[in-house]
C-alpha cells in the first residue's frame, strides 16, 4: 500500500497497475455501450436505406461531400494529435501534453464549426425535418426520414465531440497544475480512447450519409 501514500492510488486498489488496468477495462466497457447506442441508429438507418434506396440517395445528394471529406481529414488529424498527447504523457512531457491537447481541441472546434455551417446550409434549403422541411419530390416524406437520421446521427456524434472537447479542456487545466506524471496519466489515456472512438464513428458516418448512392 506504499503507493497509496502518494495519493495516486485510490483506496479500493492495491497497486497502481491494478488501477490502470481497471480504468482501461472500464473505458472499453463504456465504449461497448457506445457502440450499441450508435449501433441501434445505424441499424435503423440501414433498414430504411434498404427500404427507400432512391429517396435516401436523393437525400445524400443534398449533402456537401467536400465539407464532409474536409471534416474527415480534420478528425483524422485530431486523432494523431491526441495520440501524440498520450505519448507525451507516457514520457512525462508536460508541455507536450498541453500543446497536443490544445491542438486536438482546436481541430475538434474546426470540425464543429464546419458542422454548424452545414446545419445552417440545411436550414436555408428547408431541410430541417419537422420544423422547416420542404423538398420538391414525390417521396418527400422518405427524404425527410433520411434527414431525421442525418440529424440524429451527426447530432449525437457532435454531442460526443462537445463532451470530448470539455474533457480535454479539463485535462489541459489538470496538466497545467502538474497533476500527471509518468506514474499517473490514466485520464489522458482514457480520454484518448474516447476521442479515437468518436473519430471512428465519424469514419462510418461519412460514407454512410454522404457517399453511398449519390449521383
Amino acid at each position, binding site marked *: 500500500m506504499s503507493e497509496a501514500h502518494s495519493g495516486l492510488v*485510490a*483506496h*479500493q486498489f*492495491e497497486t497502481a497497475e*491494478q488501477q490502470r*488496468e*481497471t480504468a482501461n*477495462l*472500464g473505458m472499453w*466497457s*463504456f465504449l*461497448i*455501450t*457506445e457502440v*450499441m*447506442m*450508435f*449501433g*441501434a*441508429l445505424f*441499424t*435503423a438507418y440501414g*433498414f*430504411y436505406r434498404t*427500404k*427507400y434506396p432512391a*429517396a435516401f440517395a436523393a437525400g445524400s445528394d443534398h449533402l456537401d461531400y467536400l465539407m464532409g471529406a474536409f471534416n474527415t481529414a480534420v478528425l483524422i488529424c485530431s486523432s494523431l494529435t491526441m495520440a501524440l498527447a498520450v505519448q507525451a504523457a507516457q514520457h512525462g512531457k508536460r508541455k507536450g501534453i498541453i500543446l497536443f491537447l490544445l491542438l486536438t481541441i482546436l481541430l475538434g472546434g474546426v470540425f464543429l464549426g464546419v458542422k454548424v455551417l452545414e446545419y445552417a446550409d440545411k436550414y436555408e434549403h428547408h431541410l430541417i*425535418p*419537422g*420544423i422547416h422541411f420542404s423538398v420538391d419530390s414525390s*417521396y418527400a*416524406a*422518405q427524404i*425527410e*426520414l433520411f434527414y*431525421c437520421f442525418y440529424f*440524429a446521427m451527426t447530432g*449525437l456524434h457532435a454531442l460526443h465531440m462537445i463532451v470530448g472537447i470539455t474533457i480535454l479542456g479539463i485535462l489541459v487545466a489538470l496538466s497545467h497544475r502538474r497533476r500527471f506524471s509518468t506514474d499517473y496519466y490514466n485520464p489522458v489515456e482514457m480520454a484518448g480512447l474516447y476521442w479515437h472512438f468518436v473519430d471512428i464513428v465519424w469514419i462510418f458516418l461519412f460514407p454512410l450519409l454522404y457517399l453511398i448512392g449519390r449521383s
Partner: protein
Amino acid sequence: MSNTVAAASRPEPDNNYLTAGYGLKSWLLTTDHKRIAILYLIMISVFFVIGGLFAVLIRLELLTPAGDLVSSDTYNKLFTLHGLVMIFFFLIPSIPAVMGNFLIPLMIGARDLAFPRINLLSWYVFAIGGMTTFAVVLFGGVDTGWTFYTPYSSTYSKTAVGLTAIGVFITGFSSILTGLNFVVTIHKMRAPGLTWFRLPLFVWAHYATSLIMLIGTPVVAITILLVFLERVFGVGIFDPALGGDPVLFQHLFWFYSHPAVYIMILPSMGVISEVVACFSRKRIFGYGFVAFSSLAIAVLGFLIWGHHMFTSGQSIFAGMVFSILTMLVAIPSAVKVFNWTATMYKGSISYETPMIYVFGFLGLFTVGGLTGLFLGALGLDVHVHDTYFVVAHFHYIMVGGAIMGYLAALHFWWPKITGKLYSEAWAKLSAIIIFIGFNLTFFPQFLVGYLGMPRRYHVYPDEFQIFQVLSTAGASILAIGYAFPAFYLTWSLFRGKAAPANPWNAKGLEWTVPSPPPKHNFDTIPVVEEEAYDYSRLEEEVV
C-alpha cells in the same frame, strides 16, 4: 466462534460502515458501496409501494365486470404506471443495485467497487429518472403501456409520453453505470486466489446480468429517444403515414426489453444458488453448469426478442426462427432448476426463512418458465397472445421468480447488512402468506386468459368475474404478506438481537467480516484457498 472473538478484539466495537459517519451529508456524498446499497434499498422500496398502489387500484377496478371505479383512460394510465414503476424502478435495480452493490465487493474480497464515485453517480441518475417519473404522475400520467408501442406513443397519445421517455432514458444510464462497475469489479478486483471458478454463483449471475445491462440498455435508450424526437418535432421515424415503420420500433424495443427480463431474473437465480447451498449444507451440484448457464441465458436472451412480435407482422419464417431459439433458452434455465434440486438431494435441509423463499421460487419459476414455452410456441401464442395468460406468465417470472429471490436475499443477508436478527416466526409466516396470496392472485389469470380475456381492459364479460374476484382476493392476501416484512424488519433495526458475523454458518467471504461490515470491508485482503460452497469442510471443522 473465531468470528466473534475477532469482532470483540477490534479496537472500536462500533467501527462499522453504519457508524463511520453521521448526518445526511455523510450518506448523500458517500462512495461506500454498502451505503449506496442502502440508498438504493430505500428508494426502490418507495417505488415498490407506489407501483403496488397502482396494482391495488387495478385489482379493485377488476372486481366487477363493469368499469365502475375508474374510467378507461384512467385505467390505461394505471396499468402503464404500474408496469413502468415496477419494471424500471423496482425490478431492474432491485437485486443488482441493492444486494449486488452491497455484496459483490465483500464476496470477492475487495474494499469497494472499481469505481465508487460512478456508483454514487448511478444512484443520483436513478433518483433523477425517478423524480421525472414522479413528475409524469403529477402531469396527468401516461397511457401507452410500459412498451411505448408506436405510432400510438409517438403520434396519438395525449398524455405525458415525452416526459416519461426522458425519465426512462435517464434511468437507463444508471443501469449502464451499475453494470459497467460490476463487470470491471468482477474482472479486476478479485482477492488473490479467488479464481473465476471459485467465485460464488451470485457473482457469476451478476456478471451475466451486467453484460445484458451494458449491451442492451443503450439500444432501448436511443430508441426511446427517437420516440421523444418524433413527438417533439412531429417527424415520422416510426409513423407509417410518413414512411416510418412501427415494427422497427418493436424490434429495437424488444432487443433490450426481452433481455431485460433476464436482468430481473438472473440475479434472483444467483441468490437461490447461495441460499440453497447454505441450507442444504452441501456444495452446489454442478457448479460449472450453473455458472455457464447464467452466461448462456444472457447470450440466448439477445436472440429471441422476436417472440414478442408473432402477431405484429413479422414474417412467418422469422417467427419460426424466434420460436425455436426461444425453446433453447429453456435449457440453461432447466439446468439451474435441476441443479438446485440435485443440491438439495441428500442434503441436510433446514427451513429458515430464506430457504422457504427458495422453495417458493423453485415452484413459481418452474410454472412461469414452462408457461413461457407455451407462449414461445408460434401456433399456441396466436391463441393466447395479449391475454391474461401472458399477464399470469410474466408475473410468475417477475413476482414469483424475481421478487421471491429478492426477498430470499433480503432475509438471508439482512443480519449482515444491518447487524440485527429479525423474528424468524413472523418472517416464515409472511413468506407462506406471500406464496399463498401470489398463487391465488395469478393462477386464475392463466385460466381466464386461456378462456380468452384480453389484457389491458377494465370492462369484461360477466362469465370472467369469478376469476377476477379470486385474483383480487389473492392480491389482498399478497399485500398483507408484503406489508409484514416492512414491520418486522423495521422493528428488528431497533429491537432486534445483534447478529453474529455468520448467523447461518454459511460459506463465503462476506460472512468472515463482522456484521455490519467495517467501512473498508477487510483489514487485510483475504487470500482464497478453497472452492465456493465447501460446506463439507465446514462441517468437519465444526465437528
